[in-house]
């Protein structure tokens, strides 16, 4: 999961009103070298939640860990880079 995805993700636990941004708890991260694409970045910036991006910036790509709902505390596991956002029945 990359930061751009994190910027889009929100908690969808029932009853939660402030499920954003998700807290990143990473045990394994990866830094991927990318060529700087000024055009892409300039197009993305207006679409992003800036505060969330700043908060997440210390993490790069999360391989293992979890995302936590800031309100309910519900943790969504990230395993092999796959965030599992599935809720259980009634959640």
């Amino acid at each position: 999961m990359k930061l751009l995805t994190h910027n889009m993700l929100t908690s969808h636990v029932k009853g939660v009103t402030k499920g954003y941004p998700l807290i990143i708890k990473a045990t394994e991260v990866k830094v991927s070298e990318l060529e700087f694409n000024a055009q892409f970045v300039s197009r993305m910036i207006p679409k992003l939640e800036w505060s969330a991006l700043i908060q997440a910036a210390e993490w790069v790509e999360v391989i293992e860990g979890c995302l936590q709902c800031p309100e309910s505390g519900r943790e969504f596991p990230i395993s092999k880079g796959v965030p599992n956002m599935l809720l259980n029945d009634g959640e």
Partner: protein
Amino acid sequence: MERSMDSTGAVRRTKEEKKLLRRQIKASHTLLKHEGISTVSHPTKHLVVSNGGLGNGVSREALLEVLKEAGTVESLLTPPGKPYAFVTYSSTEAGQNAYTLLNGRALQCHDQSVTLYFSYVEKVDSDRSASCALPPGLSVLEDFVSPEEELQLLQTVDWMPDTDDVTVQKALKHRRVKHYGYEFRYDNNNVDKDKPLPGGLPAECDALLQRCLADGHISVLPDQLTVNQYQSGQGIPPHVDTHSAFEDTILSLSLGAKTVMDFKHPDGRSVAVVLPERSLLVMKGESRYLWTHGITPRKFDVVPVSEAGGSGVMTSDLSNLTLSRRGTRTSLTFRKIRHTPCNCAYPSVCDSQRPPSPPSVPVAEGDACRLEAQYVHQVYEEISSHFSSTRHSPWPQVRDFLLSLPPGSILADVGCGNGKYLGINPEVMSVGCDRSANLVQICIERGYEAFVSDALSVPLRSGGCDACISIAVIHHFSTQERRQAAIRELVRLLKVGGRALIYVWAMEQEYNNKKSKYLKERTTETSMESSEELKTEENKSKPQEEQDRKLSSDVKCTEDGFGSMTQPRIHIHTNRTAFVSQDLLVPWHLKSNADKNKGAASGSTKGPMDNTSQGPVFHRYYHVFQQGELEDMCCGVTGVKVLRSYHDQGNWCVELEKTLSNSLKNDIA
């Protein structure tokens, strides 16, 4: 016909003669219409004798006696089960003689009288006497037990009113049965595997079973015995012994009298096999799993004239058949109880390899969730690797939509599968999600952004997406409410002015007189459901009822049957055929080699792994959409307008634009 009638010399026919002529013409029409036998009007030495067939209960001997009155008979063909026979005289004169002399002759056979009608034929079609082989895996071992053993075994089966508790005895509608070892239940065509009957098999059977073992007919001793007693005129409907109940080899010993057992392949091939008294029938492999076997209830069988008690197929030589009166036959059927699901190579007739009873169309939310969990989520999880290997080419019109998005757009692919659309437009920030963790894993391995989530609750902030796609996803929701909720969720993700493209499978696989790829493509693998190509019998379109009947076992066809179901069941679709209803279970034949990474998880929708080429069959739930249904559903969602609606290769497609902002709980913009 006229000319030959003139040869009788009677210009003015009596009432009787006219009646005879009418009947005779009718008989020759029937032959042409139902049997493809063309009669000719000029005299020949070959004649077809209507009503003079084994199928009418006319024995060969009785017929021959009559035929001889007209001249020297060169040959007589008596096809089994047919109401006619072919006679060839030594000369045309003799043939003509038979025609005039014997037409309308009444023949007394057993308890009934039949009237013979003669017509000339050009020649006797020798194809009609084509031989056929025994079904693969079938053998009949003659004189397997001695007359002494036979007597002893018959005495062992005590048909007295049942007082002991080691066996179960029942008088069925058409025969008597008795069970040892385990009771075969005719209500579910299976055995209670955890309720063995005390006493096991009678000790009197030991010797013959040991002989079977020593001769290699079986590799393990049977533990279930069903004794059937058939009076003359009784039979058993065609059936395949329940796959999940018994292991491969089935032994059946015929005592007291011979009979003829009919074997039928699902493709229509039929072989009648004589089971002589004291013979052992061994059914293995294809003959045990795929062919039905049954005994037609009748009092006479058509058997070879050579009467030496010979076994085997009796359709090989038509000039050599006659009738044999049935006696009381007792059969001892030995089977081995199966404790693991059947993994035969014939899934079309295997109860272990298809859902035991398709679920009904759900109404309540809870039922819908359970149905989708079992028939969608679980299935995709298990077939993910094989499924992914069949999903590589993007559909052109979806690709066009993606390429039309401005650079820097944010795209959500809800139900992204293996991510085949996530990399189409590299100028777009694409995020995919899918219910199947295995499929999302494939996306991640390909370097795409994706996460696991449900399409009814996508954890993306509202109004954050410039575009959404939902390709072949919404048809997996099993109620109208859930299908519409999935569309509402897509719309929630869109910003105002954002567009969504939705594809669902169409009920109409033929549109504007063009068949969809799904119907057309039977070999190539480019269309949506292409990997579901079946290479087995199942591929031939068969009504469900017929499949059920094929699966039925023992007396199921007559004793209980499928008519008693009251709940409407979801139809099991036959791949590559038109849809017959909107709610379907679509089979997926898993190719084992494509699924090496598969876990050991097992569900009731799944058959066991197979050691032959045929993998297990899974069933996915689909609701196929009728024309206008998707569009109507989209129009029912507030804040959107339908930009276009079209049919694309058997799918209904809608492109939406979000027109109004929705302020929902997750809306942070």
